């Protein structure tokens, strides 16, 4: 039929008469029809929890006694390529006689932030870390700007959880807090069908 005339053997004839290519195609689509779908039902039932190396929203850490690790050295401000971090240092007189340098203001503008991670590389005390929260959408400007108090709250994914799996989740509907994706519990790592799916 085409421009190239191929030799037309008896095998080709049988192939055409019994629609063999056609049946092959049908069996392929039928296998897909009965196989498991690869759709991630993200907000309602499942959620992909990233690995620890994921760079999401910033978080400020405390040491084991609950003291803020940040010493307000402003290295993160200097390292930041987009100037999205603001640090105002003050002297903390509540220490043991020696006055500590602490951050009075530590804000990050997430609209400008490009999540490069230079701030956590620059930080000498591992105070600032890019965490695993990535659901940053909201309907006003409130979520574009995070203050120190908000950043000091531990993020929803616990640090011990290795990540890289899909966990059960549901969509919370809250008038005040918006619609966060709630992960009720972080269970142990399971074999992950989603990564193996073609």
């Amino acid at each position, binding site marked *: *039929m085409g421009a190239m005339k191929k030799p037309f053997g008896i095998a080709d004839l049988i192939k055409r008469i019994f*629609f063999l290519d*056609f049946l092959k*195609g*049908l069996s*392929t*689509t*039928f296998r*897909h*029809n*009965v*196989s*498991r*779908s*690869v*759709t991630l*039902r993200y907000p309602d039932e499942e959620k992909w929890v990233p690995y620890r190396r994921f760079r999401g929203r910033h978080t400020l850490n405390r040491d084991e006694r609950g003291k803020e690790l940040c010493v307000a050295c402003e290295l993160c401000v200097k390292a930041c390529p987009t100037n999205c971090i603001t640090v105002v240092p003050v002297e903390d007189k509540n220490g043991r006689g020696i006055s500590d340098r602490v951050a009075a203001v530590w804000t990050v503008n997430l609209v400008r932030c490009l999540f490069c991670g230079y701030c956590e590389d620059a930080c000498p005390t591992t105070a600032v870390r890019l965490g695993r929260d990535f659901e940053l959408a909201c309907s006003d400007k409130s979520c574009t700007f995070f203050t120190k108090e908000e950043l000091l709250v531990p993020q929803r994914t616990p640090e011990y959880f290795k990540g890289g799996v899909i966990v059960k989740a549901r969509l919370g509907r809250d008038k005040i807090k918006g619609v966060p994706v709630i992960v009720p519990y972080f269970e142990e790592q399971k074999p992950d069908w989603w990564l193996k*799916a073609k």
Partner: protein
Amino acid sequence: MTMDTAVLTEVVIIIVKVMIVAGVLFNLPIPLTWIERKVAGHIQSRLGPFRVGPHGILQPVADGIKMLLKEDIVPEKADKFLFKIAPLIALVPMFLIFVAMPFGESVNLPYVDKEITLYISDMNMGILYVLAVSGLSVYGLMLGGWASNSKYALLGGLRSAAQMISYEVSLTFAVIGVVMISGSLSLLDIVRSQYGGVFHWNVFYLPVGPVWFVIFVIAGMAEMNRIPFDLPEDEGTLGAGFHTEYSGMRFSFFAMAEYIAMTSIAALTTILFLGGWDDPFGTGILPGIFWLMGKVAVLIYFFMWIRFTIPRYRYDQLMNIGWKILIPVSMANILVTGFLKIWVP
């Protein structure tokens, strides 16, 4: 003049039967769209509609409300009357087909002890009526394409006319083959001639039965304008083909016509080739109408399955398949069928 009670009862029964069939057919596209989208989704390893209701089962209802609320646009330079009437011309013949379609032998109604037949009318030339009426629906497509006053719609309408002419021939040939095998033009008698299990069905009338079956299914798919033969609404080259200018309910009339056409082709295939309501193994577990419905459902799934397996044919390929393959094969097959009928007892 007083009317006889028996005649009056007959009239009432016929009206009730017509209303039931029309009601079922009118609501049939609602589950069928959902099933089609689910089949599409799962074949592509997706889930399909999932948000409205459990497993998205209310999605067609939401779509229907959306369609109803949409603005009813009639293009300024369109032929207003034809534009408005074309969806109805496409839709109504699809209902008319089911006047002649038998769904089973008679059943005895409990409580009133009345024998009613599971068909609206048993025409002695039912198959001719079905072919004639189903041929009418292409006027809806052609008029819709013409009246839209748009080049895409016009091309779609022309294509649907050409496709109709090409494939109606081989469809009718396949029907002639069945008529030769069964020896009747009445759909009821065609089914009766296939009673007695799976090997009495026309599809197993070897060696010609399977060939007729394949020809009929291919031509039927072309008749109902579905992929791989949906050249009239080829969105790759024609916008949306004959319904480019349609929106809202008028558009959904065309979609409904397509789904009812699919059902009618599936039902016709069942009646002509797959023994209608005949129990394939003679077990007698289920009433015949469930066998009919099951076979129709399997065929509808098959049509959807094909839709998401095979790409659309090019226009010249479509014509080649119709004229150079299907019609010669049907002619040769008629010859073989005739010889078989004469010389094989």
